């Protein structure tokens, strides 16, 4: 599977679960189970989950809370039970962005260690010219200004 080559931003999370790898892997694919943790919240009024758990399969999760409907869809682009799962993630009613999420799972004692990489291709604004150096320069000036005016 060819991954996109545009500039990307990556968020990485590592988590230790108190369950073996196959349970953690399956938690993403069981529609009943996934609907309870993946894309929901305590204030959800309705939650429907449709998951076709195989390479090339699609998923759709709809969550309604506070009067707003959130719909996430995607396709499984990598599928190696229980160690690796990757899928696209999009919320078409809210944005054109299509993210990619990859999870890898290893055994860790009687539990599992999972690494999640969430890649987004959105065009973020350039960092401030300032950066930390200039920000502290500004603050420094401010503090000196205040001191001389006491």
């Amino acid at each position: 599977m060819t991954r996109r080559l545009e500039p990307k931003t990556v968020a990485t999370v590592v988590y230790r679960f108190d369950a073996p790898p196959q349970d953690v892997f399956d938690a993403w694919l069981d529609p009943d189970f996934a609907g309870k943790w993946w894309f929901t919240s305590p204030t959800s009024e309705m939650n429907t989950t449709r998951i076709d758990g195989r390479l090339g399969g699609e998923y759709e999760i709809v969550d309604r809370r506070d009067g707003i409907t959130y719909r996430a869809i995607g396709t499984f682009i990598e599928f190696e039970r229980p160690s690796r799962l990757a899928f696209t993630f999009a919320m078409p009613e809210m944005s054109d962005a299509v993210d990619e999420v990859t999870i890898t799972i290893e055994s860790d004692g009687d539990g599992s260690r999972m690494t999640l990489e969430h890649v987004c291709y959105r065009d973020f604004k350039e960092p401030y010219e300032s950066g930390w150096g200039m920000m502290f320069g500004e603050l420094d000036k401010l503090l000196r200004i205040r001191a001389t005016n006491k």
Partner: protein
Amino acid sequence: MDGQGLSDAPRPTELASATAYLQTEAMNLKEGSLDQTFIALADPIRRAILARLNLGKARVTEIAEPFPISLNSVSKHIRLLERAALVKREKIGREHILSLNPSGLDEASAWIEETKSLWLARFDTLNALLLKRKRGEL
């Protein structure tokens, strides 16, 4: 020789605009993660926390020590700085070490921190469910 110190002294107009800077930006409660940055910077305690971290990494307790407010209150300020992606937290052993996020003043970093928080919250829920199921409570 010129009095270098005197020539550095700010003019009244500089003072007005410099002090107005943080106050007015904090008032602009628009949507957007860059505004979170302004709100984060608008508080003197948070600026002091950032100044301390500019000198190097520190434990939460080390940062809280010089402040006259409770550790709990300092932690709230720190969490706000984390949500604004200005500060990052690493867990080393049992300790939480804080440091400045080097690219903290940009949208990409803010997205990264928000996304990480979201996933961590989901995983906490998932782990609780897995434990319940293991104990036959599900």
